[in-house]
């Protein structure tokens, strides 16, 4: 499903005299319409496709009207390409300032998956303006945020740009009562580890297995146990899904079976009903029950399919390896597990993911391992992945330990001495020297690996670690928890140093009386570069425990596979 589907589906568009819909692709159209409207993201490639279509028309002597609507913004680069291709005069351009797509009651997506690669790999700031405008929009709808926290360079830039936009627009939001008390911005590179872990809460698992697109999933024949696929909208409206989405996968079975027993009981009630009761039953309850029945069988089908796929993949062993990596035990054993995974050509994406997890948790691979794993990877999945490894190194997801850690010591000393901006410059200057993850140290300081006495009860979780089977508290969520608790970054200095800093906290409504308590409970968490369903589940849990209400704004929903795929070079 695409964002447009969520706003105006095909039938609505047809009502507005749209003749046909096409995907903008690298091939000529066969349409006979005399007007074309391109609704596009501002991408260079798309511009070239459009130019090709127009130029093909020109060659064929056909004249049409062309309109390009850029969403959310028009980039000058796009116009330039149109100009270069000689079609600039043939098109009229427009912008559709579409920044926010609510996927659910508490999730807003900007649907910009390319943000991750563009910013974190290419160092391109083009989307920051969009983030700032999205914030401006939210601000105009819900009043000013009274307190802002953030961590990461992009978070800082987005926040500052947004503040500038606010100042300039002179809107009268000042007098408004804030409905969202707090805002927390975070760069994805603050915590790659969490995004790289296999997801085991239901919604995350569904995303990892079937790919949720724009809040909807395509359940194939293996789930529906028929010969057709069904598109299902996954959100809080789905009565079954809303109850299992945040649960650990192992508790989902129990829930579903309980639910189906209840359903059975409700159907059974109709025995021994008289005509009138039966009439009531049919008119009032039956529809709901049928709906529930259908949802139940879909989710049971999905669970079965997930189980089938996961058992085939040695999921158990993989999870065990991930946990060892997170805890820092049996590194050799984990390394050879990954090696074998590669040798057996199990999955190129999963192999990459495991290597990255090993690298980040270990602060880079030791040179010998790096070389050998890379060679085997190229042999198993193709030599062109040379480029993938280069990208991963640049972004800092898969690095080689430098011989001798002296450099690191110098680096951290330097960054302690000089100002923030200068440090940033230094980091930038050594673009290839991607930042160190220091995961082990951070994990220790924040207690990310819960000490377990006996078995971790996944049905009655006691902390956010349940989203990873009790083995690991997601770093991103832990940071948010800590800062909200302290209402500042005070006391987290050591962690910040290991995280490479770039934190901020700003109190906006200084002069006003204490803002309404209700709004103070609401926290808008902004993930720059994507957030995972596991993180959402963890923060929902935290919200329930501490009485917060989290609203998620993300550039896109992400998971490990999407992140890895973004690093792979493809042909033009």
């Amino acid at each position, binding site marked *: *499903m695409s964002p447009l589907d969520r706003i105006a589906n095909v039938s609505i568009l047809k009502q507005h005299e749209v003749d046909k819909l*096409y995907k903008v692709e690298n091939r000529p159209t066969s349409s006979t319409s005399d007007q074309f409207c391109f609704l596009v993201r501002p991408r260079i490639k798309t511009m070239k496709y459009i130019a090709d279509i127009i130029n093909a028309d020109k060659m064929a002597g056909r004249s049409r009207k062309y309109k390009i609507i850029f969403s959310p913004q028009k980039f*000058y680069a796009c116009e*330039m390409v149109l100009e270069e291709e000689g079609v600039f005069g043939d098109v009229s351009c427009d912008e559709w300032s579409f920044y926010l797509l609510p996927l659910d009651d508490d999730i807003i997506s900007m649907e910009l998956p390319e943000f991750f690669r563009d910013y974190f790999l290419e160092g391109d*700031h083009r989307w920051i303006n969009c983030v700032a405008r999205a914030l401006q929009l939210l601000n105009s709808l819900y009043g000013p945020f009274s307190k802002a926290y953030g961590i990461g360079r992009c978070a800082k830039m987005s926040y500052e740009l947004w503040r500038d936009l606010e100042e300039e627009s002179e809107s009268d939001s000042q007098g408004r009562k804030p409905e969202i008390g707090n805002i927390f911005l975070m760069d994805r590179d603050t915590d790659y580890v969490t995004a790289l872990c296999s997801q085991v809460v239901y919604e995350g698992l569904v995303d990892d297995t079937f790919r949720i697109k724009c809040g909807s999933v395509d359940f194939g024949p293996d789930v529906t146990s028929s010969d057709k696929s069904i598109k299902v909208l996954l959100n809080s409206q789905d009565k079954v899904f809303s109850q299992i989405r945040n649960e650990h996968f192992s508790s989902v079975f129990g829930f579903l079976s309980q639910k189906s027993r209840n359903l059975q009981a409700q159907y059974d009630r109709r025995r021994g009903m008289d005509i009138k009761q039966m009439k009531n039953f049919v008119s009032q309850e039956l529809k709901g029950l049928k709906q529930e029945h259908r949802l139940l069988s879909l989710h049971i089908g999905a669970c079965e399919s997930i189980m089938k796929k996961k058992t085939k993949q040695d999921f*158990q062993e993989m999870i065990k390896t991930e946990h060892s990596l997170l805890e820092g035990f049996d590194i050799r054993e984990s390394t050879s597990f990954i090696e074998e995974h590669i040798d057996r050509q199990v999955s190129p994406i999963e192999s990459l993911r495991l290597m990255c997890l090993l690298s980040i948790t270990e602060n880079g691979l030791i040179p010998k391992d790096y070389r050998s794993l890379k060679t085997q990877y190229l*042999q198993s999945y193709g030599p062109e992945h040379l480029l993938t490894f280069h990208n991963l190194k640049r972004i800092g997801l898969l690095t080689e330990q430098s011989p001798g850690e002296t450099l690191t010591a110098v680096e951290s000393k330097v960054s302690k001495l000089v100002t923030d901006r200068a440090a940033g410059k230094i980091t930038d200057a050594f673009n290839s020297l991607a930042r160190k993850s220091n995961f082990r140290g951070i994990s220790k300081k924040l207690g990310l690996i819960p000490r377990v006495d006996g078995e971790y009860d996944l049905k009655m979780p006691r902390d956010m670690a349940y989203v990873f089977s009790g083995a690991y508290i997601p770093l991103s969520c832990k940071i948010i928890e800590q800062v909200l608790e302290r209402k500042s970054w005070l006391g987290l200095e050591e962690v910040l140093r290991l995280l490479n800093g770039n934190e901020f906290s700003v109190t906006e409504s200084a002069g006003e009386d204490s803002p309404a308590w209700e709004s103070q409970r609401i926290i808008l968490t902004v993930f720059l570069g994507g957030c995972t369903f596991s993180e959402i589940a963890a923060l929902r849990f935290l919200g329930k425990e501490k009485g917060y209400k989290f609203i998620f704004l993300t550039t896109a929903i992400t998971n490990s596979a999407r992140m890895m795929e973004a690093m792979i070079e493809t*042909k033009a």
Partner: protein
Amino acid sequence: MLTIHCGQNHLKESKRAVNSLRDIVDDDDDDLEKVSWSGDPVGSISWSIKETASSSTSSLESRDSSLQKGYSSYSAFPKQASSYSLSSLFKGEGSCSAWFQLMKSSPVGGRTVIHVAEGLKGEEQVGSWGLVQPGDLPHHPYTIFYLLCLQVCSLERFRSLQDKLVLLDEAVAGHDGNIITAVKILFQELEVRQVALCHLIHFLKETSEQKLLLDLLRFLDRTEEVALSQYREHLNIQDVEKRREFLKGCIGLPFSAEDTSHVQDHYTLLERQIIIEANDRHLETAGQSEIFRKYPRKASILNMPLVTTLFYSCFYHYTEAEGTFSSPTNLKKTFKIPDKQYVLTALAARAKLRAWNDVDALFTTKNWLGYTKKKAPIGFHRVVEILQRNNAPVQVLQEYVRLVEDVETQLNLATKYKCHDVVIDTYRDLKDRIQLAAYRCKVERGSAEEEKIDSILNNTQIRWKN
């Protein structure tokens, strides 16, 4: 995670329950519509977001010319070397007027520029976050250039950057030290402004301005990136012969030592694949070779990874002498494939053909006294798993189950794959009477296995531990 196993029963149970309801609930599809949004079959909306992030670099067609090393010279560029001065590089009239236009036509455009500029507040302070007044611009030559680089995208004056690169080429070619320095300063200004530089590089990648990109990277001394950017071009070359030629040209590029050997291997691999493909296609169409008749090829071997090629070679050319390019041993030697990898792949291929003798030979080693012994560079539990996936008969399977070192794993595998003999022997060796007795009901009644269990249980010689 152990809970998942117990959970499965729940799942089955709930599935049964739900299925049993099926006859009560008749299927009407209008409810379905509510749950599932579905457009019309045409469905696909013109701009659906691609799941993977954009990676729209590199050109549409192959540009073999980009392999040319060094700076190429542009004869078209007018030579007027004497009038070159630093400021004249910047004060192109066009640049300024374009800026004025930009500022007038869309204030938003100006802002975009400025916010980018924040990351690189140098001593010039390109207006911090505020809107730069058009009038401010032309005063400082550098300013124009920053803005140019930031918004190369926005200005058709981008040309002028290209001109500058050309100028650099010219300068280098003309050994005019003065100009080289002048242009260099310009680039250095860009270099310290990393964000602008990133934008420029990304933009060049996106617009497939390969030549310009390479020149810039060369100037910045990012030699490895130069090599990788050139190597990247091979992805756009469809024709295998052309691709092979291109890769050959890549070998000399300034990769790291490690990557040089990978690129060399890439070239060699494709070269081999082309030979193998031609031979095998011929064999297949001729219909003479039994293996190709029995197992027709599903796809060509061209551009496949090395391990896939090895599998293919173990499948179709297993017995060939080392001298032929298509033989597994030749591949193993040429590409220095580690034992472990080789054995895994050969095992998978031979097991798929159910060539159990070959499998046997793969693990058999002879010592100097002539005794044979089974050895594997991978765990025997993996061997068992691969064999089982290829439906190996129990006789074959149990031989390898016996070789699994860890007793517990061995027992688990034996039980899972019904290698009764192994299970029985293991319990006997463990002197575990209770388990053995319990296992008795898992074997067929009146079978040889049952008899065996009985005879062991009745054996008074054994000192049971329970």
